[in-house]
C-alpha cells in the first residue's frame, strides 16, 4: 500500500469494518529463510568451529549415554512396567446425598445472584456453586451497576471464603487471648455484656439491601434507640460527597456519575477508573463516553498530583501539587463564574461569588501554587460550557479536612456547567442506603457509652 493512500483512511469510515480496504492488501511474500547465521556468512561458521574445538572437554569424561539411548532404555523400562501396571483398577465409591436439596442437581452447577462486598459500590454478581460450594464469581449481566462485569477485587473475593485463616467459629477475647468457643457460649457472653439492651450501638457499612432495616429492627427490639446505627465506609468519597450534598441540597444522597451523558470530563484528583465511587460502573460508562460516537470522541482532562491509571488514559493531564485539588477547583470555579455562558440561576451565581470572595486571598496566590496558567482554566471553562460536561473531584483515598469543601466546590462547578440532571443524577444512586453524613463523628462522640456491635469493620480507635 502506498503512503499516499493512508491519508485518506482517516475520512473513510469503512476502514475499521471487517471487510475494509486492508483485506485487499497483497499477500505477504516471505523473504529468504536462513536457519543459521553460518549460511549467510561462511566466516562465522569457520570461527565457530574453531571455538568449539577449543571448548572440548580436556578430561575426556562424558556421560556414557547420549540422549537417544537414554530415551530408548527408559521407554523400554516404562513399557515393561506398563504392561502389568495399567490393569489396576481402583474401587471407586459413589456417595449420593442423604437429603438432596431441591436446587441441587448432582454434576451441574447452581447459580445464585448476590452482591459483591469488596468495596462500597455493591456490584451485582452471579455466584456459581457446585454441591453447595461457591466456585466462581462473575458480574450479573442484569445488574445496572456491574452490567455483567466484576473487577479483579471482586473476582478474587472467593479466595477470602476459603482462606485458611478465616474464622470458622466465634472467638472470645480473654485478656489478650482469643479463644474459639461455641455459638451458644458466645451468645451467653454477648447477653451478659449487653445487660438490659438499652445501650447497644451498631457500626456497619452502606448497604444495597434491607440490612439497615434489619439492624434498626434489632435495635428497637432490644430497647436501644434506632439512631444508634452508625454507618461508615473506608472509601473517603462516600463521606465527603454525601456530606457536601447534605450541606448543598439538604438530602442524604449519593449522586450517580453517568459518564455516558458527558462528552467533556474533567477530573481534579479523581480516581474514578481505579476506585472512585463505583469502579465498574464508572469504567463502563467512561468507555462509552470516551469512545468515538456521533462523529467525535469524548475528552478527559485530568489534574492530579500522582500519576494514576486515569491520568495515563487522559487526553490532557496537568500535574498539580499534592493537596492542590481544592485550589485547582477554585480556579476552575472562578473561570466558570467569569464566563458569560455559565449556567445556573442568579442566586446560585451570587452564592458562588460569595465563596470566591471568601477564598480570594488563596485564589490570588493559587496560580503560582498550582502551576497551571490562567488561560488553561479559561479555555477549559469555555469548552465545558459548550459541550455536555462533568467535573469529578477528589480521590477515594484523599480524605482530609478539605475533602468536603472540595466536594462543595465540585457541586458548584457542576451547577455552573449544568451537569445536574444529565451526567450527575440524584436518583437512588449506586446504593439505596448509602452512609449517613455525620455518622462517623456521631459515633466517635457517643461510642464510649455504648456496647458496639461491629459489622464488617474492626475499629482500632
Amino acid at each position, binding site marked *: 500500500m502506498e503512503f499516499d493512500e493512508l491519508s485518506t483512511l482517516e475520512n473513510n469510515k469503512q476502514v475499521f469494518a471487517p471487510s475494509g480496504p486492508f483485506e485487499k492488501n497483497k499477500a505477504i511474500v516471505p523473504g529468504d529463510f536462513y536457519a543459521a547465521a553460518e549460511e549467510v556468512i561462511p566466516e562465522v561458521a569457520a570461527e565457530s568451529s574453531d571455538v568449539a574445538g577449543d571448548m572440548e572437554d580436556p578430561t575426556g569424561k562424558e556421560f*556414557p*549415554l547420549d540422549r537417544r539411548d537414554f530415551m530408548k532404555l527408559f521407554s523400554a523400562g516404562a513399557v515393561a*512396567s506398563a504392561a*502389568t*501396571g495399567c490393569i489396576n483398577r481402583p474401587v471407586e465409591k459413589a456417595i*449420593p446425598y442423604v437429603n438432596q436439596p431441591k436446587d441441587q442437581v448432582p454434576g451441574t452447577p447452581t447459580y445464585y445472584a448476590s452482591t459483591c462486598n469488596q468495596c462500597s459500590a455493591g456490584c451485582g454478581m452471579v455466584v456459581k456453586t457446585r454441591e453447595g460450594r461457591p466456585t466462581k464469581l462473575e458480574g450479573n449481566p442484569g445488574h445496572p451497576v456491574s452490567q455483567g462485569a466484576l473487577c479483579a477485587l471482586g473476582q478474587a473475593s472467593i479466595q477470602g471464603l476459603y482462606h485458611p485463616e478465616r474464622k470458622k467459629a466465634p472467638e472470645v477475647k480473654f485478656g489478650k487471648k482469643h479463644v474459639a468457643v461455641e455459638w451458644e457460649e458466645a451468645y451467653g457472653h454477648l447477653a451478659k455484656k449487653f445487660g438490659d439492651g438499652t445501650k447497644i450501638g451498631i457500626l456497619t457499612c452502606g448497604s444495597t439491601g434491607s440490612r439497615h432495616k434489619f439492624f434498626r429492627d434489632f435495635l428497637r427490639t432490644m430497647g436501644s434507640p434506632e439512631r444508634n446505627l452508625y454507618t461508615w465506609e473506608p472509601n473517603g468519597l462516600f463521606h465527603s460527597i454525601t456530606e457536601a450534598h447534605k450541606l448543598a441540597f439538604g438530602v442524604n444522597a449519593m449522586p450517580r456519575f453517568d459518564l455516558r451523558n458527558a462528552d467533556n470530563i474533567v477530573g481534579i484528583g479523581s480516581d474514578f477508573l481505579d476506585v472512585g465511587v463505583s469502579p465498574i460502573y464508572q469504567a463502563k460508562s467512561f468507555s462509552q463516553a470516551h469512545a468515538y460516537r456521533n462523529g467525535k470522541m469524548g475528552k478527559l482532562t485530568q489534574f492530579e498530583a500522582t500519576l494514576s491509571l486515569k491520568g495515563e488514559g487522559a487526553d490532557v493531564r496537568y500535574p498539580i501539587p499534592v493537596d492542590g485539588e481544592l485550589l485547582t477547583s477554585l480556579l476552575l470555579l472562578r473561570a466558570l463564574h467569569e464566563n458569560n455562558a455559565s449556567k445556573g440561576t442568579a442566586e446560585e451565581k451570587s452564592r458562588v461569588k460569595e465563596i470566591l470572595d471568601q477564598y480570594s486571598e488563596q485564589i490570588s496566590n493559587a496560580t503560582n501554587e498550582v502551576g497551571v496558567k490562567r488561560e488553561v482554566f479559561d479555555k477549559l471553562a469555555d469548552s465545558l460550557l459548550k459541550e455536555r460536561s462533568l467535573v469529578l473531584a477528589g480521590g477515594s483515598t484523599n480524605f482530609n479536612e478539605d475533602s468536603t469543601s472540595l466536594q462543595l466546590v465540585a457541586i458548584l462547578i457542576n451547577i455552573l456547567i449544568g451537569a445536574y440532571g444529565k451526567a450527575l443524577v440524584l436518583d437512588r444512586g449506586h446504593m439505596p442506603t448509602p452512609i449517613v453524613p455525620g455518622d462517623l463523628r456521631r459515633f466517635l462522640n457517643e461510642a464510649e457509652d455504648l456496647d458496639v456491635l461491629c459489622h464488617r469493620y474492626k475499629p482500632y480507635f
Partner: protein
Amino acid sequence: MLIKSLNLKIVLVVSDAYWPFILLCSLVLIWRPSLRLFLFGVAMCAAAAVSNTGYSWWMWTPGDTVDTSTQSIIGNGYHPDQPINFSHKLHAGDRKIPCQYCHSSARRSPIAGIPSLNTCMGCHKLVNTDRDPIKFLTEKFEKDEPIEWVKVHDLPDHVRFTHKPHILAKVQCQECHGPVETTETAEQWAPLQMGWCIGCHLKKNVSTSCNTCHY
C-alpha cells in the same frame, strides 16, 4: 560393587513400592553416571514390575484396587459387591418403575446420579419396612449418613461423557447399560471403550469430532 548389591537388596525388600529404589538409583546416577548401573536398574525395574502383585511403581493407586482374580475389569462384566443387594429386576422389571424416576438427574446433568437416600425413603417409609435392606436404609437415613455405593461405570477423567444430550436425543438407557430390568445389582454391560462409543456415533450419524468428548 557395593552399590549394586545394595540396589539389589532394596529391590528385593521393597518389591511392592519401587519408587524409593528409583529415587536412589537416580541419585546415584546423578552422582556418578554409569551405563551399567543404569541398565541394571532398568532391568530390575522391569523384573519387579512383571512380578508386581498390588500396584506398579509408576502408577501407584490409592485405596483398594479391584481383585483381578475374580473380576474382569477391562471392558464389560464388572460386577462389584454393593452395600445392599438392590434389585433392578424387582424395581424396573417387575414393578415397572421408570429409570428416570430414581435417576432423575440423568436428563438434567452429566451424571445419571445414584439416587439420594430421600428418593428411596419416599416409598420405603411405607413399603416393605420389615425387610432387612430397608431397615438398613432407614437406619442410615435416621443417622443422616450416606450410603457408599461402589461405582460401576467409570470413565477416564479425560472423557467428558454427559448423560443429558443422550437422554434428550431419546437414546434408551438399555442401549448402553444393557437389560438392566432383568439383572439384580448393577453390572457393567458395555465395554465403554472409545471404539464402542465411536461405533454407535457412526451408526447414528452423530459427531465423531475429538472435542465432542475430549475438551
